[in-house]
């Protein structure tokens, strides 16, 4: 009996000792962060719709590090110090890439030595301006202007504009409790677009919602949004 207990203790001790060893790699320390911007203004996006890829050249096996872009156009990644190639794939986002002067392509070289803030300038098809969202009782109305940024041969039409309302701060076409669409053909004046929707009953009750407007551009996968606003009911 005593012998058994001794063996058991040795066994547990053995496991304990063997598992104490720390990882032999340091965790990455350097933070790369920034926003996707047009003339310094952030471009707001849907939740988990747009992502970028970081490639670190020089390794035998190649795999990208995916970097998701948040709803307010910001991104961040904690990385090892190295030189990375940052790339937004061509069909991602409601914008076009601007040619990088160093690489002569849409790839941006990032030489990471410690924390770095890097805003990425892009060329959006449209920008949402002067967004005003207000409530009257449970009706939410939004008024905004749509400015056409790309006007050359690459210009694209508006498929629809939408107002989205949600009870949490995730607000987009996939995350909403109420929405209102207006198809592009029915927009009379791009300078003043009005949308309104009614907030349905929310359980558990809350006296505020989050809202924003979005634009679906014909032939572009990801939508462009305005900033999320908290609306008191």
């Amino acid at each position, binding site marked *: 009996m005593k012998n058994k207990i001794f063996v058991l203790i040795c066994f547990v001790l053995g496991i304990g000792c063997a598992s104490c060893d720390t990882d032999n790699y340091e965790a990455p320390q350097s933070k790369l962060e920034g926003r996707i911007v047009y003339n310094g203004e952030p471009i707001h996006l849907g939740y988990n719709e747009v992502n970028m890829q970081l490639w670190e050249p020089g390794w035998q096996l*190649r795999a990208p590090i995916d970097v998701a872009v948040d709803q307010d156009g910001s991104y961040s990644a904690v990385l090892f110090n190295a030189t990375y190639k940052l790339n937004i794939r061509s*069909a991602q986002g409601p914008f076009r890439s601007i040619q990088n002067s160093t690489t002569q392509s849409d790839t941006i070289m990032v030489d990471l030595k410690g924390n770095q803030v890097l805003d990425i300038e892009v060329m959006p098809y449209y920008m949402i301006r002067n967004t005003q969202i207000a409530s009257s009782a449970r009706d939410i109305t939004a008024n905004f202007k749509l400015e056409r940024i790309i006007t050359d041969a690459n210009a694209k039409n508006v498929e629809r504009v939408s107002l989205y309302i949600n009870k949490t701060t995730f607000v987009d076409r*996939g995350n909403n409790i109420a929405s209102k669409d207006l198809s592009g053909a029915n927009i009379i004046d791009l300078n003043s677009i009005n949308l309104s929707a009614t907030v349905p009953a929310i359980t558990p009750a809350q006296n505020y919602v989050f809202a924003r407007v979005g634009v679906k551009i014909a032939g572009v996968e990801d939508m462009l949004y305005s900033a999320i606003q908290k609306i008191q009911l």
Partner: protein
Amino acid sequence: MKKYIYIFLTGLLVSSSSCNDEEFLNKKPTNILLDEDVWTSPNLVLSVLSNLYMRFPDFQSIEGWANYTEFDEAFASNAGDYGRHRNTDYGYGNWGLWDYGYIREINLFIQKCTAATALNSTVRDRFLAEARFIRAGIYFEHVKRMGGVPLITEPLTYDLSGDPSYLRHPRAKEHEVYDFVIKELEEIKATLPNELGSKSRATKGAALAMQARAALYAASIAKYGASTPEVSLPGGQVGIPANMAIGYYQTALKAAQEVMTLGYGLYMNKPDLGENFASIFYEKANNPEAIWVEDFALAGGRPHGFTIENQPRYQAEEQQGGRINPTLNLVQEFEKLDNTFAPLPINDASGNPILYSNPTDLFAGRDARLWGTVILPGTQFKNKEVDIWAGYMRPNGSIITSNNIGGRADVNGDGVTEQVVGFSGPIDGLEWTAQTGFYIRKYLDPDPGSGTIGTRSDVWWIRYRYAEVLLNAAEAAFELGQPDVAANYMNQVRARAGLTKPLTTADITFDRIVHERKVELAFEGHQLFDMKRWRLAHVVWNGSRMTVADLNANIGKAEKASTMPFGVWPYRYLTNPADPTKYDWVFRVVIPNPATNPDRFRLGNYYSQISDAIISNNPLLVRQPNQ
């Protein structure tokens, strides 16, 4: 003294056993068959071939029920699969395929069979044609999921030189793979026998049916790919030039019309049209419709568990079932007998529920295929009530129900409890109940014992059937500007479903073509690949949340968005609580609680990801677009 004897004996033993190395090392193994044994016996060759047949992959099939619930055809009523309705995006690697091990073995078979002079040449030619049929099929599977893949038609061998880079092959163009498939099938069709009764081996009909489908896929990618220029690669590994569409449509129409001359026909053996439609999938005798199937057998054969997994929960033969719940989205697509589309009449114009005396009355006057595809509330399976109803509803809208299947509660306040919910549910969030109000009927086996683990089911999995050939021909003819020809083929399929008012030439539109495939071929593994080749997937599964108004709009339209699984729940309507014999049925549209997020098919999902590991091994492979 003894010691010396042992030493002497040991020496003797060693020398005696080591004298004939040659013979000792070349013993014929008793546990494996060698090439020279196999390739002299037609029976053994057939065994090798049947192994190749058995490994043929399908994305959605009766051997993997859960894949049917990936899109909007069905809801997964199984606790471990609710995640399918909670995520938004499809992974880039979903439904991918990269099985060069399998292709190598097919190539080895072809190489060895070609050299097998001991076989009778007629027998050998048939084996070879069958192997080439399987190879064409697996390349078709690859190209429809991955786009252009390396075309390897010889078994590759590594020379152990330390540098395997000569084994790397780049991706072929997407149309080159389709061309290969079409050419191979063209070459072998004459060698394959036209045996209508031989369903699980390659026949002339199977080769032509596959050729028609492959050509149709290539044609529609060429034509509709123009609408999504982002989904292409400059090297042509993904995307087919638009000017090739006409040629492929012509090939598809010609091949499909050739199948029509072989003697296949639509299954029409039963007077009840709904039952007749369901019988196509479980009745193996006298079935002129099935062309190529994966067959299963009971007792010592290969049975499968599709009926166990999906039988109605009430009176199920095991304490499980009911996993696939077809959605209201699909049910509403089944049109009315006057060829028009309409949502189910659940509420009247002022929003009050319409009362029905039987639950099935809600579905009256619709396409008979609905009854053959879906188990509706108020119907029977294996001559047993399915018992799908969600509770009692009072005129003020309040509901009496229970959280257990067949649960009881006091309805009329007399202190006596009665059953307040069906034994098949629906109960929100309770697995295996009919959470959309429906169960699947297609491919369920009505034989006794098919729902037990001890017996299981031998219902076959039909890969190609005659009705699809007709629809393929109809689509090709429509695209070639022959709507009269298309109408003729479509009407044959529709007449069998009880839609006796024929479609006129003017009725044949792209929406009609898309719709007919959706209802005729539901749960047969076509939906994803059809939506991909028409470049409709990102339009239909667009990631936007749906409301009931969205559900009821645009029924029968190709571009109708359908991102969330809806259901319809029947309630007994308590008009007079004092007299419990008087109740009628009312219905309510729901989204099952576990379905929280809309589906979004991204442009990068059109062609499945080639994994980083594969690309690292072979840098000649080009990445898929938009991933």
